[in-house]
């Protein structure tokens, strides 16, 4: 990591390329999530890609800068929000008579807004998985720092 603990980030080349590509990676993740009910992918894969885009930022610009923007507690909270959302969608299924039952109109096959509650579940899973994976990454990256504070 460029020899300086990765705190200050990598070289200018890496930073510039990251600045250009990271938005595309993020958008690609969103695309995968929203088309999850039509084509391969879905909340899990999309969530991983979105988390990867954040990790890219983190690695390129260094921990110090990134921790000013992203708070660990916020990521943990977001993960819980994803889980609660998913549970909420499952419970809303009781409106149709059962756990996880579909409660929305099914729509036309192969159009973007179709599949009833499936796209909503995909979004919830995306939040949960993305935040969870990024949380694991943050926990591993910030391990030494938190240990120093703790003792």
């Amino acid at each position: 990591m460029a020899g300086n603990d990765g705190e200050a980030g990598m070289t200018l080349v890496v930073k510039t390329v990251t600045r250009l590509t990271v938005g595309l990676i993020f958008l690609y993740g969103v695309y995968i999530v929203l088309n999850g009910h039509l084509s391969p992918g879905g909340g899990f894969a999309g969530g991983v890609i979105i988390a990867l885009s954040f990790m890219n930022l983190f690695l390129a610009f260094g921990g110090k800068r990134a921790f000013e923007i992203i708070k660990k507690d916020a990521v943990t909270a977001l993960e819980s929000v994803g889980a609660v959302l998913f549970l909420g969608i499952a419970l809303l299924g009781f409106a149709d008579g059962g756990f996880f039952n579909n409660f929305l109109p099914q729509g036309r096959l192969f159009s973007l807004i179709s599949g009833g509650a499936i796209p909503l579940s995909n979004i919830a899973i995306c939040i949960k998985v993305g935040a969870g994976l990024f949380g694991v990454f943050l926990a591993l990256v910030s391990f030494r720092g938190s240990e120093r504070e703790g003792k």
Partner: protein
Amino acid sequence: MMAGEYIPLLVAVPLAGAFFCALAARKSGAFADTLGTLTVALVLALSIYAVTSPASTHAVGGWQAPLGILLVMDGLASFMLLVVSLVAFLVMIYSLSYMNAYSGRWQFHTLFLLMLAGMNGVVITGDLFNLFVFLEVASLASYALVAFGTGKHELEAAFKYAVMGSLGSLLLLLGIAFLYGYTGTLNMAHMAEQLGVMGVAPITVTALVLLLGGFALKAAIVPFHSWLPDAHPSAPAPISAMLSGVLIKSLGVYTIARLVFNVYGASPGVLNLLMVLGAVSMGVGVILALRQWDMKRLLAYHSVSQVGYMILGFGLGSPLGILGGLFHLFNHSIFKSLLFLNSGALEQATGTRNLKEMGGLSGRMPTTSWTTLSASMSISGVPPFSGFWSKLIIVMACVEQGEWFYGAWAILVSILTLASFLKVTKFAFLGRLKKGFENVREVPWPMRFGMAVLALLCILGGLMLVPEVKEMVLAPAVRVLDHGILTLGEVVRL
């Protein structure tokens, strides 16, 4: 079919408990304690209901067997659930005061409940891949719990345990892949039918070897036992009790029995292999235990040895042998968890696990002393304690089958076990009180309560053989294994 509506709750309740512990109980340790205890109590109530109600199934999400996951509650599953949740409940009460020494209440309860959910899931599922998933949930939670103290030894033991455990899981996954490729189904009942029709082939033997290897690693049977004496002593005492008491049984012994009897149908070759593995485990475990001075390590080696008894019982293949194996499984969960709880009480009171440093504690810690004594007598097979009856049944089954050597071996190992536990009693409780222990006090009441109930179960365990009780708890489980590959099909077609 409708009767099985409650089955998913056995996994869902502890899972939800773990979720809310992580979500809402971070600030308050007392709240986490309450939530954890209530959840485990609810699981215990559910499993008592499962034992008293007839066999049933539940198709998850309404998808029937070949497509969806089928949860099967038969005699064996309800028996295992009773063992797991009974021990979990008493250990939970014990840990209420023991875990005061550690920080991170909510992490403990979250991981504990996750492990419980995983074990319950392994027991009730009727789908091989689903079994793998729950097994991994329970294993991952247990890896983290072994590392809970985050000291040097805890971390090292957890790493070793996690590496060995992951290897075992990979063997399992490979075995499951072979079986799926051959039979085209993951449902255990359908798989048993297919295997019966298609007969033995090299690929099924390969799969059996891989699966047996994986499960034997989880059960710590002898060639694969090396992680256990490191991992179990390193965890906090309530977790050691859970790991040695029920985890190795629900992930290892139960799964081996299910696979060998209900999926493959017990063939003489496999049964002979089980008998040899069991006998070797018994011998190696007890011999390694004899030279230990660290109390928890000694207990961990005895777990290896006692698991051997269960495997030997199953290996006999006769109804009496299976009864002995299952009854010993029940008894071992009770007395081994009790012994680990005792070692935790001793460690908390005296600050050491080394038997040489203890001495004369019976006057200072009366409850710990008599509970340890009853558990020691039980594990050594002294009448009238529970361990005597199960070992007696196993020896009788050996004689019945004409396996004189294994019967004699079981008695010899039992005598060595007795010698080992006389050492524990002599050095820890009898003799003169050592200097510095004058102010040692008995442990608080939640710990005493948990130990006392388990000790009573040790003393009264023989009552499990009274015909009425036996017909309710043990006999259905024996029938499940004895009927072989037909069992699962019978339940599925209810």
